[in-house]
């Protein structure tokens, strides 16, 4: 996305959110169009905005709060999600999270098929000699997630790769997350393989 487009988006966003925010004192209703505008009409992800459909509601809710508190601080988070959540109350965050979690997710299928087998091996077994933890232990056998641990299956290769790189670069997601330690020993070939494998998981 170039600068003009994002400036234009930000302006539109303010226009969309501001009237709603002032309409009701305290908790306001946020139309999902404010979100699907970037995340795709059925929330399957679009360009840099990840899929929200089928994601664990408790995970979506903690991330929305983390954007609002400016704790989740990667460049695209700052650029897009800080303003998108600025006027989002806790109840609105919970409602949006519940809504998006009920939409059936579709797999992005945009990985490199030649790397999928290697990715699956790392996902299931880790690489104990290199201190790489088995993702399976937390994200589940089918990468479906549980409670506030996210579903990874079918997210886009681009998004998965960026997330795994950003923990290694020192960006934050939520307080007390195990992911910085998980990501630190991952080499770029391993990140590529994991992101490829996961993009195909249904």
């Amino acid at each position: 996305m170039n600068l003009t487009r994002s400036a234009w988006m930000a302006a539109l966003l303010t226009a969309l959110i501001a009237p709603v925010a002032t309409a009701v004192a305290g908790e306001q209703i946020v139309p999902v169009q404010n979100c699907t505008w970037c995340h795709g009409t059925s929330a399957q992800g679009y360009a840099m905005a990840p899929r929200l459909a089928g994601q664990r509601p408790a995970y979506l809710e903690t991330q929305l709060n983390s954007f609002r508190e400016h704790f989740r601080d990667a460049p695209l988070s700052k650029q897009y999600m800080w303003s998108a959540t600025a006027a989002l109350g806790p109840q609105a965050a919970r409602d949006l999270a519940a809504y998006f979690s009920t939409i059936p997710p579709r797999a992005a299928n945009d990985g490199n098929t030649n790397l999928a087998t290697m990715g699956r091996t790392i996902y299931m077994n880790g690489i104990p000699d290199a201190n790489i933890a088995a993702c399976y232990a937390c994200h589940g056998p089918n990468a479906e997630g549980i409670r506030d641990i996210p579903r990874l299956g079918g997210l886009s290769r681009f998004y998965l790769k960026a997330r795994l790189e950003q923990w290694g670069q020192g960006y934050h997601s939520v307080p007390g997350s195990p992911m910085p330690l998980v990501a630190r020993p991952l080499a770029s070939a391993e990140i590529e393989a994991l992101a490829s494998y996961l993009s195909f998981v249904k």
Partner: protein
Amino acid sequence: MSSFGSCLTMIRAAILAAALSMSLPVASRAGELQAKLDYCKTCHGLSGQGYRGYFPMPRLAGQQQEYLENQLRAFVERRRINPIMANVAHALSPSMVSGLSSHFQHLNPKPIGGAPSHSSPAGRQIFNEGLPEANVPACSACHGSDGHGQNEIPRLAGQLYEYMVGQLTGWSKVRGQGTSVDTSAVMAPTAHNMSRSQIEAVAAYVSTLP
């Protein structure tokens, strides 16, 4: 004087070389231990307090060193079946096993909590007095009145509720799988003789002990 001086220089150089050749492996061994500890803590909690992933990962903090070492060997020897820990334990040298175990024994974070609290009064009674009619001895007899265990008998205090319920309800499917009898046999009859609700009650109680 000058020969004494050059002699000193030579001695210094020798000491320095010796110190260097010793300190390098020591430093890298310490680095290896730290990296391995970080790895264990990704799953077992950043202070070893346990963690709820897709599977419950037990608390290792304050655990008896002998118990930890025995279980890590049990995973490798397939006396105890768990695919995740079998992989993890295979990659550990004996000196790494004792370094990790002694580190975890000395940690003391608060219990992680999260157990249902309503059943724990019944659990307290099972822990201290057992269930004589069901042939269940008092847990405190072996695990200690504070639940801290000793040697090969594990600490139960502050252990994750879901983890303990899982172990006690599935005891003989997971533990004591080798051909020879091991320490898991000591615990087997007690695990068998408790009902699911008695297991839940006692697990809820001990999970809150500091």
